[in-house]
């Protein structure tokens, strides 16, 4: 019974993570995007703690706290400062229109469910049903990177993808070893700093963070 309630909470959190992923896919404003990303991190961190409680693995608590501090507080703060410094609070333009992106997103969820159905049969964990959600979040993050033109939104898509991977890892295997998780967290942090520096350089060179502008590199002016 205890396990059952925990599994229900976890699948509800999985649903919320999927919802925030879709929210990011359709969100037009930069601040809204960053807030949604922070929410996704929060749900992820709660979910990790719940899984840690179910499985009785202490190190998952550590990675939950790590997620909370990095993905809910630090990274959104950095992105927030970046958008403010670079004055890019305005609407984010998309390549494909929003309703179509939504439909592609739904198709991706169905695809990942279909893909994960056999894997689900093999697993005996309580949290196995959330595996498809993890994959869907990864694919939606990828879709976001493809359909957005703006460098910052592409980075958020990348970070959302990482969230999906992390979620899939905790729900499929009750988490990776702590060393791996620490390494990944550090990688993400370093990556965020490098992105920040790159943003400034792109911005000063091209006067815009629109990646289409980078096609000019080819002409060698």
């Amino acid at each position, binding site marked *: 019974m205890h396990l059952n309630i925990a599994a*229900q*909470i976890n*699948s*509800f959190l*999985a*649903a*919320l993570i*999927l*919802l925030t992923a*879709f929210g990011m896919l*359709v969100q037009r404003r930069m601040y809204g995007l960053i807030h949604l990303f922070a929410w996704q991190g929060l749900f992820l961190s709660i979910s990790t703690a719940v899984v840690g409680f179910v499985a009785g693995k202490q190190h998952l608590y550590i990675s939950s706290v790590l997620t909370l501090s990095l993905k809910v507080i630090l990274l959104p703060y950095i992105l927030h400062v970046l958008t403010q410094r670079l004055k890019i609070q305005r609407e984010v333009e998309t390549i494909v229109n*929003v*309703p179509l992106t*939504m439909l592609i*997103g*739904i198709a991706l*969820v*169905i695809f990942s*469910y279909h893909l994960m159905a056999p894997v689900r049969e093999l697993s005996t964990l309580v949290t196995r*049903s*959330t595996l*498809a*959600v993890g994959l869907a979040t990864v694919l939606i993050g990828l879709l976001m990177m493809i359909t957005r033109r703006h460098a910052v939104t592409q980075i958020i898509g990348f970070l959302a993808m990482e969230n999906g991977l992390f979620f899939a890892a905790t729900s499929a295997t009750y988490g990776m070893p702590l060393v791996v998780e620490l390494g990944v967290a550090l990688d993400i942090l370093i990556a965020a700093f490098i992105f920040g520096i790159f943003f400034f350089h792109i911005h000063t060179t091209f006067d815009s963070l629109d990646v289409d502008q980078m096609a000019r590199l080819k002409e060698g002016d």
Partner: protein
Amino acid sequence: MSIYPYMIEIAQILILLAVAPAFAGWVKVLKCWSQGRGSAGLFQPYRDIRKLFSKDVVLAENASWIFRFTPYLVFGTAVLAGGIIPVLSVDLPLAATADVIVLVALFAIARFFTALAGLDIGTAFGGMGSSREMTIASLAEPAMLMAIFTMSLASKSTSLSHMAQVVISGQSVLRPSISFALLAFILIALAETGRIPVDNPATHLELTMIHEAMILEYSGRHLALIEWASMMKLFLFVMLGIAAFFPWGIAASGDLLAVPAAFFFMLLKLVFAGIGLVLIETGLAKMRLFRLTEFLGSAFLLATLGMLSYFILE
């Protein structure tokens, strides 16, 4: 063969007719308060309806039978829908013959005829209103059906009475599919009843009106019937939401003693539904017409996610 279910059916329709204007009045009162204005009181809609009934009908010269017939049809479908949705008790003889899909179709018939009547007169406003209404309907109806299918997957039935019974006796609390369906339903209900992010029921500003544009040519008792029917529609959507998602308090089958308590619970839920509606309406601005596809698209998305999470997570 017991006679009580039929009495409950009749009582429910009478409640629908009587309480719907009061609920519309309650929403208006709350809205006035939230904007710091004095309100006209809870019973203003009754006075409006009485005033309209005592006025003469002014008909356009080229109005056909469709224009004259529509108010009665719209009113009739609203009353019929009131017989299907469990308000007091799940013991409804009509609910056995008509499920939720029929309910959606009933609303669709009313909308279809309203749109025709908007075109019938041949004014520019009527046509514009009909065109907009149909645009919204074509997006809202699939989402509505999807949300309903999600609910019926969870309860293994499309009958509203049965759904309510299943939810009352349900064990699981946190069901992602139902939460998604509820969110989708709220978005659709706002669109279907013409509330603020989609349509503004209080305005006659030509650029923004949708439902008001279609019924602009109506007067007298025709207008009274249409206004009354749209109040009933608002009431019915609230009741539909309550029956599908928060049915606690609705009397179970054969439990006659619980009916007065059910009435009390219904009033309580209506009070809270009104507060929620006004919070949404004052918190949001009316959306641009071309953004509506996204609004209704996200309703569809939520409903579909609900259905998918039923398969994936439950």
